[in-house]
């Protein structure tokens, strides 16, 4: 049996097919989950992909969080099931309060599509414990609103609780403003919930799944996660 990865599709989602391709390459079975249905179709892992759900009008993710599907995602997350939000999916998880903080307009005030390096900060929870902290991954970003923000006390709590999952860095893992593409606080590219089963990240691992596309590091991330989940 292979792992079944549910991929949420909202009106305006655009990386569901890329995610399905990525899941297949990692040996999982992708299944599309329609936003209007309150049904995870037996998914072990739920992925909220990139896009502009409901046009991202009002605020990115602000409308999507009310989708019937999100109630099922919440139940799954609260029961400890793994949930991964990528780009718009991360924004939706923050709006749904399944993850702390918010994603603001990039500090450069422009959309950014470029390759970035990420440093794995914690090897915790079902999605990251297969990776050594300090591992550097390369994958692209593609967003206009990816500047991670949390109030100072919450940020301190995140750092202390091992919830900062990924940071933008240089090729050798070094931190610096020149490696931070959007002005995120503390170079944060991805965060975990307190329990570690919900991960949100702005970069696109599904775009780094073949040597032909310039990197396989996104595949590494998913394979490690599936390995941690163990045989189904």
């Amino acid at each position, binding site marked *: 049996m292979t792992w079944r990865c549910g991929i949420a599709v909202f009106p305006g989602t655009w990386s569901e097919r*890329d995610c399905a391709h990525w899941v297949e390459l990692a040996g999982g079975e992708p299944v599309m989950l329609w936003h209007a249905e309150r049904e995870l179709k037996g998914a072990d892992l739920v992925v909220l992909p990139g896009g502009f759900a409901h046009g991202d009008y009002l605020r990115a993710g602000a409308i999507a969080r009310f989708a019937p599907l999100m109630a099922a995602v919440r139940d799954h997350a609260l029961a400890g099931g793994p949930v991964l939000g990528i780009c718009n999916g991360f924004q939706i998880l923050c709006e749904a309060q399944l993850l702390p903080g918010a994603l603001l307009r990039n500090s450069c005030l422009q959309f950014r*599509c470029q390759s970035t390096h990420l440093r794995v900060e914690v090897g915790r929870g079902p999605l990251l414990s297969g990776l050594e902290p300090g591992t550097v991954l390369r994958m692209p970003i593609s967003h206009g609103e990816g500047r991670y923000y949390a109030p100072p006390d919450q940020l301190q709590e995140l750092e202390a609780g091992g919830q900062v999952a990924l940071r933008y860095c240089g090729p050798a893992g070094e931190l610096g403003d020149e490696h931070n593409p959007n002005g995120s606080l503390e170079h944060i590219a991805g965060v975990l919930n307190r329990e570690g089963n919900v991960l949100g990240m702005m970069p696109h691992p599904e775009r780094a799944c073949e040597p032909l596309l310039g990197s396989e590091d996104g595949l590494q991330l998913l394979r490690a996660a599936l390995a941690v989940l163990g045989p189904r």
Partner: protein
Amino acid sequence: MAAPSAAQLRELALTEEEYHHAVRQLGRAPNELELGMLGALWSEHCSYKTSRRLLSQLSSQAPQVVVGPGENAGVVDLGEGLLCCFKIESHNHPSAIEPVQGAATGVGGILRDVFAMGARPVALLDALRFGELGDPAQRHRFAKVVEGVGFYGNCIGVPTVGGETYFDDAYRGNCLVNAMCVGLVTAPRLLHAVARGVGNPVLLVGADTGRDGIHGATFASVQLDEGAEERRPAVQVGNPFLEKCLMEACLELAGSSALVGLQDCGAAGLTSSCAEMARRGGAGVRLDLDQVARRELGMTPYEVMLSESQERMVLVVERGRVEEVRAVFDRWELRSDVVGEVIAQEELQISSGGQMVARLPLSLLVEGFLPRRPPSSRPLEVERALRAAPLTGGSPWTLEEAWLRLLASPNCSDTSWIYRQYDHQVGDDTVVLPGWDAAVVRLRGRGDGLAVSVDGAHRSSLLDPRRGAQLAVAEAVRNLSCVGARPLALTNCLNFGNPEKEEVMWQLEEAVAGLAEACRQLALPVVSGNVSLYNDLSGDSIPPTPVVGVVGLVGDIRRLPGPGFAAAGDLIYVVGPGGTELGGSELQRLLGGMVLGPPPELDLELERRAAEAVRQLVSEGSARSAHDCSLGGLAVALAECCVAGGLGAVVRVGGQSIPADGGHALLFGEGSGRYVLSVDPAEGGRMEEVCAGWRVPCARLGEVGGDQVEIVGLARIPLAAAAAARLEGIAGAMAGPVL
């Protein structure tokens, strides 16, 4: 209705002669609504009344062509039942007035043209022209157009994989925004824009109809004036989210036998979509405007019929199957309304409030316009310009200075300032990223890929529009060769000034003739296109700017060389003829001079053979890098290969003695048909053998290595300085304040 005044007709872009022609043909005076519909469909934008007779020279005959011009987009066969559907279109006038929305809706429009054929869009490209970036107003316009392209493409989730941008004072008044879209569809799902089957319902789906964009088509067919900004209401506002849903719903329906025909509502809105669909189907359409969902209260039939509200499509559905079609739109939370039906009479009949308010025969509406044949003449200045020396007074710069200035020119420099604002990777198929010769998108489940390039050559066109058009085609073919692609077909966007000026008409005639000649010689069928005339501001015309988009097939995408040199010690070759013309060159522009001197010579037969040779070297894996010589000539191409590979080079060009002009033409001349290739030293013999086989000149220039780009005896610049100059160009200019 009393006969309209001259001013009223001008507002509709109609002449008195055209009005009287309509009266004669109808046997009565058209009412106000009918006149508005005729004005829109007879506008240059919709009817091509000035360019049509010229465009007949362009041939779409080739075995790979499935659909030629006349549908929403052209279609070529990629083999194994897969079809590629593509087109380029301008949105110049709207972008000049409201750059974000003008550019955004240009992208939205070309996407609709492609998914109207049932094809899933897989790539967007843009060809842009602005005035020079020293002017804050131009920086503003440029930044906003890029924002608009990104706003639409990024949101809808189609990658913008390539394009070209040129800054020249000649576009100060009229920027050009040409958007190209490429889509894929399997043969059974290919859709056509037809209305047929009497009694079949006609549906309008997507956005509600509002007052935006009324007369957009006629607006695009008159020249801009200083008061143009007041026409801002003629520019539509885009909603890419709505279009994303519309696209998914239409693609879901493609292949369903319930769908008879599909067309987007573009220029001239419901009027043109219904008229053109019915004309193609040999039928007519009756519309009941009371069924059209409105965005605003109190809209007149005139406004409903001419609205250019974006994100709308017209469908013809098999009788009795409306509900299953509507269910798809319902699922995507989109509005869909039955607004009419197909009728046997070949007419467009419009009713409102239970009364027939317009009734026009389609033969008159779609094809009944009077062709225009404005007089043309070759301006005298052209003759003088061609005979002049390209660099009057020579160059005040040393070769090194000129070299670095060229690398830092926004026209040659790094373009990441633009493409990092575009999602160029969504879809997981972009295997050659933007910024180099051609973009490559892989074809899933096969080992091959699609290569696409858009190109233009306006400065050469100003000197010789026939040659300029040919140079644009040749450049696109070279760009494809660099990634080993065989060109399949071409789309074109003809951007010109006011054709009522004799010299502009001459430019148009010459350019189309040149385009036809180049396509014939390079065996490229022309499958789609668009004409944008009246690109004038206060009487000044843009330079003739034919832009071409070429699509080709790359045999094996795992074997693509990059543009950058790959390893120290590799041998560097220049392949192709040795022209060094400076007429219309980038160096000339930087020196601030007029566009003078003969443009690059072009031997199309040699271009074809050089393309074959390079394609063979690339696809068999002999070439480790391939890049074509374009703006800035050989020296700029060499420096670009060095910067891309992070390696220096030492080369020798020309003979032993230093030329009389100090070497400017030798280094920076823009002779057509040249490529810079590098090969492993063991492959040098193979390189020479393949070129000899195709009878293409090929010269070994030197070797990769070191930390300088050195042209022995003439000039050398540090690699780091070349890299810094390339990054400086657009990004440096855009660091300044915008208006």
